[in-house]
Structure formats: C-alpha cells, structure tokens
C-alpha cells in the first residue's frame, strides 16, 4: 500500500472558483495574441489584483490547422511536407519521429550512416532552437543585446542546414528508411568552425546575461516547479531536470546513435526560472559537444537510405506504435495507428508544450507579478503550434 513518490494528496488540480469581476477590485487583462511578450500566437487571460495575478487561463487554437485530420487525407510520403510544420522552430524532431513511427510499424531499418546523419540533424536543430530560446529569454527581461547575438548565430546554423538539406526552416530531410542526402564537401570543416565560434558566443552570453545581477534578481525564485509537481503536472525535459530529476530520453531509452555518444544528463535543483535558463545554457554547450562527436564518428560513406518499396503506393502494415525523442522541451512523441492501407489511420502528436503551457502555466502564473509573466512564459519554453497542431 505504498504511494509512489511524486504524488501527494495535497496537490489539488481542481479549478479555482471564478473571480468576482463585478466587485471592481480586479482587472481582467488579455496578454496576446497581439502582444510582443507572448511566445508565438497564443494568449493568456489574466485577472489581476493590483500587480499580482490571481487567475490565469491559457487560450490556444490561433494556429490550429487540423494537422492530424490532414494527415488522414494524404499518403505516408506526402505527409512529410505536413509534419515538419507542426513545431515551427523545431521541425526536425517531427520529421524524425514520423519516420521512426513508420519504420517501427513497417520494420524498415535505416542504415547506420543515416542514423548518424539524423543525429547530427537533430542536434543542430537543438542548438538552433536553444539559441533562439536564449534570445527570447533575454528579450523577455529586456536584454536585447543578447537576443541579437544569439539569433544571429541561430541564423548561421540555419545556413548549415541549408547546405545539408537545401532548406532553411522546413528541411524534410529525414524520410522513412534514411535521409535524403549525405553531407556536402567541406561541411565538416565549416560546422566545426561554427561550433568553435558558438562556444565563444556562449561564454560571452554567460558573462553578459547569466552573471548579470539584474537578470538574477528577475529570474531567481520565479516560477518554481517543486519536485512534487513534476509528475502530476506531466513536466518533462529541462523543466523537470531543473527540479532535480535526471530524466533524459537520450540516456533512458536511447534512440539513433545516442548510446555511442559520451554525454551526461544535466540536472539542477532549484527549479526556478534561473535554474532552467542556466540548465538550457549548459545543454546548448552539450549540444555543441555532441555535434563535434557526431562529426568525428559519422561514417563518410555507405548507403544513407534503406531499400524501400515504391512509396507512392506503399501499404504500411496495420499496427500501432508510440515513438518518442528528447527535443529541447522534453518528450516529443508520435502515436501512430495504421490499418494496412496507403493512408495513415491516426497520428497523435504529443508535444511537451501541451502540459507546460496550459496546466503548468496556469498554476505557476498565480501569485506572479504581471511584469514577470513574459519571462515565466519563455522560461517554460513553449511553442503554441505543437499544442493545437
């Protein structure tokens, strides 16, 4: 009769009683969708008592395109143009997971070189996404200098993506059975050069932003996720690691070539916005390091695509699977059901923002100062398009 850790009866998920707005004591404020301090296109409905938030409701759906419905209208290969658009700043994880789900059901094995290239692509994506996040976190607290620096470096990573895949944002690089192309000539040299520069940039960012007394004053103690909250709220990824959990799918359930790479799971303890920000900086460094390892370890020749049946009328056997990968925000997953036809029966995309931006955000926002909402929102690292899909 032992209760498993992480759950306590004291945690109450019940919705609070609605605030009596007609009393005139409170102000209702919409933050977004037309608001520069919101991440992407979503909105927060805030009720204020003075400067303090007493109620927060997340509204999503401004980006809803019905991806899961659209996927049920298209063949497996046609969906590759669709899936990458689900999470705009991080399309590569969608491509990988969609390909991995099909491979799991159909039993196709991608060759080793393709796995290394996929790992490279995912880690570059992680680096680009983290760089953008650092800029966002700086901007949310008014530190525009760092935002300009890091976004520029993200653009340099996008240049490398363009070399590797032919596209800046939406690559459509990973297909079932492998990847679309190998590396262009001289790519290794250029990426290693960029990694060296990025290391220097990250040192500078740490000096200017993370060691800054004002940044510390703003971020420390903001939006604390306690250890007890992690499991009941479904917190994953850096948000959970900053609260002291050593959970990383790359280590726990290794996929691709992560079991051959040398890295440690980074975790913190305080669980506040500063801890999360610092953890993400360390993970950015880790990502740079992993890219170096992948470049050193990747085989330079060999097939990068498995033999595939004609993709146009490929009938994937009936089955069901759930594949997941560690994206920058935590567990990203694809649940796929097939029924033996040329068209997928059902795809469900599980994005970590789904829990972070709604249940967790609504809880953390209560009691926060209105000035800190943008910073809190960014520190949870949420992307609206993966919530509403």
């Amino acid at each position, binding site marked *: 009769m032992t209760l498993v850790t992480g759950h306590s009866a004291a945690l109450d998920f019940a919705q609070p009683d609605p605030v009596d707005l007609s009393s005139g004591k409170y*102000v209702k*404020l919409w933050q977004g969708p037309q*608001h*520069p*301090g919101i991440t992407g296109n979503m909105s927060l409905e805030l009720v204020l008592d003075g*400067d303090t938030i007493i109620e927060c409701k997340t509204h999503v759906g401004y980006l809803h395109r019905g991806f899961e419905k659209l996927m049920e209208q298209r063949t497996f290969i046609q969906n590759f143009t669709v899936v990458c658009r689900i999470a705009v700043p991080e399309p590569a994880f969608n491509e990988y997971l969609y390909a991995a789900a099909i491979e799991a059901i159909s039993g196709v094995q991608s060759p080793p070189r393709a796995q290394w290239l996929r790992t490279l692509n995912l880690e570059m994506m992680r680096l680009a996404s983290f760089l953008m996040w650092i800029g966002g976190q*700086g*901007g*949310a*607290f*008014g*530190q*525009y*200098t760092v935002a*300009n*620096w890091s976004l*520029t470096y993200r653009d340099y990573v996008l240049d490398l993506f363009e070399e590797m895949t032919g596209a800046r944002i939406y690559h459509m690089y990973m297909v079932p059975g492998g990847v679309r192309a190998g590396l262009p000539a001289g790519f290794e040299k250029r990426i290693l050069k960029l990694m060296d520069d990025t290391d220097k940039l990250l040192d500078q960012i740490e000096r*200017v*932003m993370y060691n*800054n007394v*004002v*940044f510390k*004053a*703003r971020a420390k103690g903001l939006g604390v996720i306690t250890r007890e909250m992690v499991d009941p709220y479904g917190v994953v990824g850096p948000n959970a690691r900053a609260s002291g959990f050593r959970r990383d799918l790359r280590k726990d359930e290794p996929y691709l070539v992560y079991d051959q790479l040398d890295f440690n799971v980074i975790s913190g303890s305080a669980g506040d916005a500063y801890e999360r920000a610092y953890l993400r900086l360390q993970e950015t460094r880790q990502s740079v390091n992993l890219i170096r390892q992948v470049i050193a370890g990747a085989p330079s020749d060999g097939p990068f695509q498995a033999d595939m049946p004609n993709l146009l009328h490929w009938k994937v056997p009936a089955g069901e699977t759930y594949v997941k990968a560690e994206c920058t925000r935590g567990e990203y997953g694809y649940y796929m059901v097939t029924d033996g036809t040329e068209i997928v029966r059902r795809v469900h995309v599980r994005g970590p923002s789904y829990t972070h931006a709604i249940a967790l955000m609504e809880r953390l926002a209560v009691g926060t*100062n*209105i*000035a*800190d*909402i*943008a910073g809190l929102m960014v520190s949870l690292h949420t992307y609206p398009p993966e919530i509403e899909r």
Partner: protein
Amino acid sequence: MIAEWFGRAGNFSLTLLIVTVYGLLVGAFIERTIAKVQGRIGIPYRQPFINILKTLVKRTAVSHGIMFYLGPVFRIAGGIGTLAFIPVIYGSETFANFSYAGDLFLVIYFMFFGQLGMALGAGESGHPYSAIGIARGLSQMTAYEVPFALAVISIVIQYDTLSITEIVAAQQGGWQHWTLFTNWVATLAAMLAFLGMTGYSPFDIFLAPQEIPIGPPTEFHSAYLSLLQTNRALFGATKLVLFMNLFFGGATGWIELMIKTLAIYMVAVVVGVAFPRFRVDQSIRFFFKIPTLIGIISIIYVQMMFTS
C-alpha cells in the same frame, strides 16, 4: 520692454529649434551605438525626423476625449518649460533663455509637470496597459527624484544659490572647479538618478514592450505621437543640458555642449545596453537604498566642506 521680451522669445525659439534637432540627432546616434553593440548597422540619421513627419501626416486619428488631446500638449509644454529656464550656453546672451535667480526650482517643477500631464492623458485613453505603465512610471519617478533632489539640494548649499547661471559661473575656470570634482558625492547620486530618468535598461519597466506594450503611449498615434516623439528628443536633450550645467561645468560653446552631453548620455547607454530591466518594485527599492544614501551623504559632505 516689450521689444526686449519679443527678442528673448525669438532667441528662445531659436534655442528650442536647435536643442530639438540636436536631441533627435543624438537619439539617432545613440540608436546606432546600441545597434553596433548588438552587431547591427542601425537606423540612418534622418530616421527620427522621418518618423515624426510620418506620424504627422497620418490620415486618421481617433480621440478618446479632451484629456487625451491635452496629454501630449502638457507633455511638450513640460519639455519646453524646462528648457525655457535653463541657460544653454554660458556667457551667451542669445542662448541664456529666461534664466533668472530662482530658475532651478522652476525647472525641477517643470520636469514633473510633463509627466503628470501625460499621466492624465494616458489615463483617459482607457487602455489597461497605459494605466499600468503610468502607475509604474510615476512610482519610479518618485523614487529617482529623491536622490536627484538630494543632489540638487547639496549643490544649492554648496554654491549658495538657486540660479543655474550662477551655479555654472561658479564652475568656470578649469575642470577642477566642476561639481563633478568639487562635490563628486552629489554628482554620483545625480548620475544614478539620471539612469532612471533616461528610461534605458535597467529602468525602462514603464515602457517594457515585452510586458506592457510600451506602457503610457500605447493608445497615442498620429499627431499625438509626433508631439510625444518631439518631446522625447527635446526633453532628453534638455535634461542633458541641465546635468551638464549643474555637474559638469556648463558649456561656453556648442561644440563643448555636444561633447559633454554625449559623454553624459553615454553613461546611461553603456549601462542600458548591458542590463536587462528591473521590475518596478526592484527599481524603487534600488533608488531608495544606495542612491538615496549617497544623496544624504552628499548633503552632510557639503555641510562639512563648504559651510564651515
């Protein structure tokens, strides 16, 4: 008599024009400096002028009431009024403006005046972010005015006068006579207050585009906004001239004025470009602690050094 007043008003108009244009140019220069730190090229020098022109020739304007009209007018009246009583160039009859024996107190009053008028105007716009911005702006202003007022009292005791012209006169004859060197404690307190006055990071919470879309002027547009933009340049330059007069020995020519004001402005910019912004309670706490303490020390210092 009347002819003399007309002459002075004409001179003042000339000063006003020069200071406004100079303020706009300084604004562009500062923008470009910040852009360089961020790795950008930045706006062209003509950009602030075009912006004002563009807002002026907007085709439509929506009003929210009489106070909404008057807000920007009060604001620019505050800017003009502040400049009107500051002698811009020491020793020049043309650019002495309406400086008189008690002008220092009037100037400090006018610096408040514009902010209050703006608060009324933005309040009438009915936008909640304006109201929040006003609340933050006024409370932060109250906070930084304390060290500033203490510093001003300190130099009033030091020079035993309320006239800016006389304060400048007392600082002539070499850099060692500047308040910066004779009363560095008061200068330090005033420069910390200056960081709050300019509205750069870390004290730009009342604008804070990421949190409350630019705060008080959220609803102002078209011609109202062009007035506010003009005032921003004018008021910014006026504050620089005031600080230069009080603490940095004033200026006897335009070139000296430019060098000194730019150097003073750079202090705020260098801090601003490296820092995120404080929350309003943090910034108030900041001003009430060290700068206020320094201000009090400066008065004690002055009492010991100059009045014995």
